[in-house]
């Protein structure tokens, strides 16, 4: 398979950056998108060129490190992570545009690598449960009904890859934040911090420069883990409920 790649190259965060065209040949359809980029990088290194920088870690779709906009879609044409996207979804002779996540809160570090630490600051403002560490508690001490556990798990699947922010025309982190809020607020372990969690995380989300939600639904379409759009409605309900209860903003 021979492909034309147009990849965003940017040396430093301050650099202007531009789309640069590369030709790659001998691509197997069984390769993942990242393996295809690995091959390009090997050729670039042999030619004495700078390899394309991109984030990756587990390469099995569970860490959320890899992320790039392929042909205008976060993680490319399939509903999966870039590492799990295979070249069989492209055709010989295709021109593929590869760009980094675009959002004010995710500044480009280099090429396709963006700084997603804004997500960490949102998590740090409430995306956890305060429990004493020590030996594991008895599993049946805190019963959770099966439908609640299932719904919480559906939201716990979020890997924080940032595709929702990249796909949103407003660079909004509502789907990410709501996944965490819904996951923890549903469970009895998260109940003591139910109000402060949602208030703190929404405030942090706004502070980090993410946009607001205009209900375009782009985030839920792009999410490789299938976090549903209803998650945002639930977070809105939790936020309004916590506001009316006068929950404490900061701990």
């Amino acid at each position, binding site marked *: 398979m021979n492909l034309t790649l147009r990849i965003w190259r940017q040396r430093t965060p301050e650099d202007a950056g531009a789309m640069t065209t590369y030709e790659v040949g001998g691509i197997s359809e069984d390769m993942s998108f990242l393996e295809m980029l690995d091959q390009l990088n090997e050729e670039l290194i042999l030619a004495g060129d700078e390899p394309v920088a991109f984030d990756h870690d587990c390469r099995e779709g569970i860490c959320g490190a890899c992320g790039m906009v392929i*042909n*205008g879609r976060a993680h490319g044409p399939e509903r999966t992570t870039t590492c799990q996207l295979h070249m069989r979804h492209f055709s010989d002779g295709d021109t593929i545009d590869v*760009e980094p996540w675009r959002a004010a809160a995710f500044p480009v570090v280099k090429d396709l690598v963006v700084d997603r630490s804004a997500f960490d600051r949102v998590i740090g403002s409430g995306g956890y449960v305060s429990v004493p560490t020590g030996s594991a508690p008895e599993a049946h001490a805190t019963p959770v009904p099966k439908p609640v556990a299932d719904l919480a798990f559906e939201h716990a699947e979020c890997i924080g890859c940032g595709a929702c922010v990249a796909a*949103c025309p407003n*660079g909004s982190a509502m789907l990410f934040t709501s996944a965490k809020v819904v996951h923890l607020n549903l469970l009895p372990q998260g109940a003591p911090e139910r109000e402060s969690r949602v208030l703190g995380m929404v*405030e942090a989300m706004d502070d980090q420069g993410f946009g607001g939600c205009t209900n375009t639904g782009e985030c839920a379409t792009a999410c490789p883990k299938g976090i549903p759009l209803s998650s945002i409605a639930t977070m809105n309900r939790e936020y309004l409920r916590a506001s009316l209860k006068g929950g404490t903003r900061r701990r």
Partner: protein
Amino acid sequence: MDCDRPSVCAMALATRTDRPPSLIGSVWRSTVGKKAVMAVTGLVMLAYLVAHMLGNLKVFFGAGEFNHYGHWIRTIGEPFLHHMWFLWLTRAALTASVVLHGVAAYQLSRRDLAARPVKYRRTRQRASYATRTMRWGGVILALFIVWHILDLTTLTVNPNAQEGRLYENLVASFGRWYVAVFYIAAMLALGLHIRHGFWSAAQTLGANSPRRDRVLKAAANGLAALLTCGFIAVPLGVMTGVVS
């Protein structure tokens, strides 16, 4: 902290327990809260529009009935309320809704545009037409409201301009083809705005759920179609001579 006088120091300690932020202040500051304000004010305006549209349809039953309806609006609530008080209370609530809705939309839009400073080189068609036209559709509706008030409330730009003769003023206004066309265009924009806005409000207020999603979307489409058709019927009636 310098503490020469113990009384001052005690005061400083006492004020360290932060007063909880006011509900209105904290809600207005957050994007989620501001959206909730937009949702509530949008629903207030939507409820008004349903009543307005039903009232408008009385135009098809003749000048007498329509003008009588116009007179009745000014007497609602009497003798508890003074003449026209109900009307002015409604106008005040609507003005507050329009202003809050517009200001919140402007501030949120500024924020949204700043949050995505660099566009993608390769883009694809995103979201529905109704969703993509919310901002400019809203601006068109705001301009329409100004024209509409000048035309049929204050009668500033009305060719007939007779106080209390609603029917005759309306027929004279829609007698100008460009006014009728502008009105119809604005009502189509209104339909699109409600199509996305109603469902969006449910989502923003947390009333949506996977179970209710289809019902709410159907309700949004139904309301949009009903209001658009109901409002457009009046200029069409004048243009076809049914109302004259």
